[in-house]
């Protein structure tokens, strides 16, 4: 009891303050409409924030599944674009020859497992293999351009020789004039490659777009690769030495598409016969 009295004499003002504030806030929340609404609303804001957090976490857990489905969707769309482009090119013959199918290329989405980038010979490992339909010799692309060519395939993994490899030679062409040459990497920046064997009578200017030629079975034609950054003719040479700025950022690739040329066997047989 004495302690209680002591408490009141010592902290009476504060206790009174707290009690009166509580009464005031009780009045505020109970009799003022706007504050009551805000009170309820604030509670909602809080619960809403909690809900959103848990939803975010849930989404994060489902991210892989979602990503995969998006990849498949993307692959299908890109596939369509590529095939339409080729069909529209071949439109001239359409009247004479009825194509039984529009699709000549299929895209297989794949995830990058491992990658080297700082070496002279760079490889990419994909988390998909022959079980997903990958074969050696298939081209690997992203939405922004080409990445490399599949070199080896195990059941669940595939090894890709990137264009950043000393042995890599990709057949590309100038979009404007159609002259074609080989794209290769001489080391240095990951964004700059060299284009060789464009004859010196070709007209060329800085900023010209480079696309794939479609001569190999690895890549469909007209895939954008990069732009001309600089060019010169070495003395005594018959061809340009062109520096190409590629569109792809090869340092961060996470998802790629592997190009499956559906008429592969047919074309290979033809090439061998020659």
């Amino acid at each position, binding site marked *: 009891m004495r302690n209680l009295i002591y408490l009141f004499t010592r902290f009476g003002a504060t206790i009174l*303050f707290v009690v009166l504030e509580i009464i005031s806030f009780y*009045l505020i929340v109970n009799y*003022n409409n706007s504050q009551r609404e805000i009170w309820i609303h604030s509670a909602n804001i809080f619960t809403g924030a909690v809900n959103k957090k848990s939803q975010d976490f849930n989404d994060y857990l489902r991210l892989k599944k979602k990503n995969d489905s998006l990849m498949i969707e993307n692959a299908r769309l890109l596939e369509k674009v590529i095939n339409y482009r080729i069909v529209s090119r071949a439109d001239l013959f359409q009247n004479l020859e009825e194509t039984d199918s529009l699709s000549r290329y299929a895209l297989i989405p794949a995830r990058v497992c491992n990658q080297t980038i700082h070496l002279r010979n760079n490889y990419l490992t994909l988390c998909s293999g022959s079980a997903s339909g990958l074969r050696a010799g298939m081209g690997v692309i992203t939405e922004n351009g080409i990445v490399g060519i599949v070199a080896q395939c195990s059941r669940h993994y595939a090894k890709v020789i990137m264009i950043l490899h000393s042995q890599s030679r990709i057949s590309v062409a100038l979009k404007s004039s159609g002259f074609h040459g080989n794209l290769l990497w001489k080391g240095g920046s990951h964004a700059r490659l060299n284009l060789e064997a464009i004859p010196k009578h070709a007209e060329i200017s800085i900023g010209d777009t480079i696309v794939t030629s479609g001569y190999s079975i690895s890549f469909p034609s007209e895939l954008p690769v990069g732009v001309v950054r600089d060019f010169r003719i070495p003395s005594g040479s018959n061809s340009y030495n062109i520096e190409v700025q590629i569109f792809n950022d090869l340092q961060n690739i996470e998802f790629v598409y592997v190009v499956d040329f559906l008429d592969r066997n047919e074309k290979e047989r033809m090439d061998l016969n020659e």
Partner: protein
Amino acid sequence: MNRFATRNIVRFLVYAFVQVVLFKRISIGFEETYYIHFYIYPIIILLLPFKTPRSLVIFLGFVLGLLIDVFYDSPGVHAATCVLTAYLRDYILLLLKPTEGYKAEGVPVIEQMGIVWCASYFAIAMIAHLLVYYSIEAFSFVYLDEIILKTLLSFLASFFIVIITQLLVNPKY
């Protein structure tokens, strides 16, 4: 002590009356929102003698706040604010304490404490009062910029009125 009691009761009634009859009707604003309100009633709490028991100050603050609330149709808002201002009064006095301390029968008026001391005392208390008032009114810190704008503008207006009144009336206690 009796003269203090009479004087403060009269002051309480007069200021509260002026507040709810005159200043309640005046608000200056821009477009749709009224930013400037005149709140002179906290002066009632501020002008209580130094030695008023703290609990009494808080209780008077509560009564004053409720009275204002009845006229402003906002049960609890002014009460909560006044109680807080009354609670803070001691701390503000402690902050502004002159080196020789407060006189036993002293009253915080210009006649006794000088205009500079009074102005800073009123200013601190009224800024706190208005800031708390607008915060409770909005009941959410989402509208922080609006709260601060209202507080500053209303403070300047109310403070001007309070100082003018004090200089004109110039109470001795």
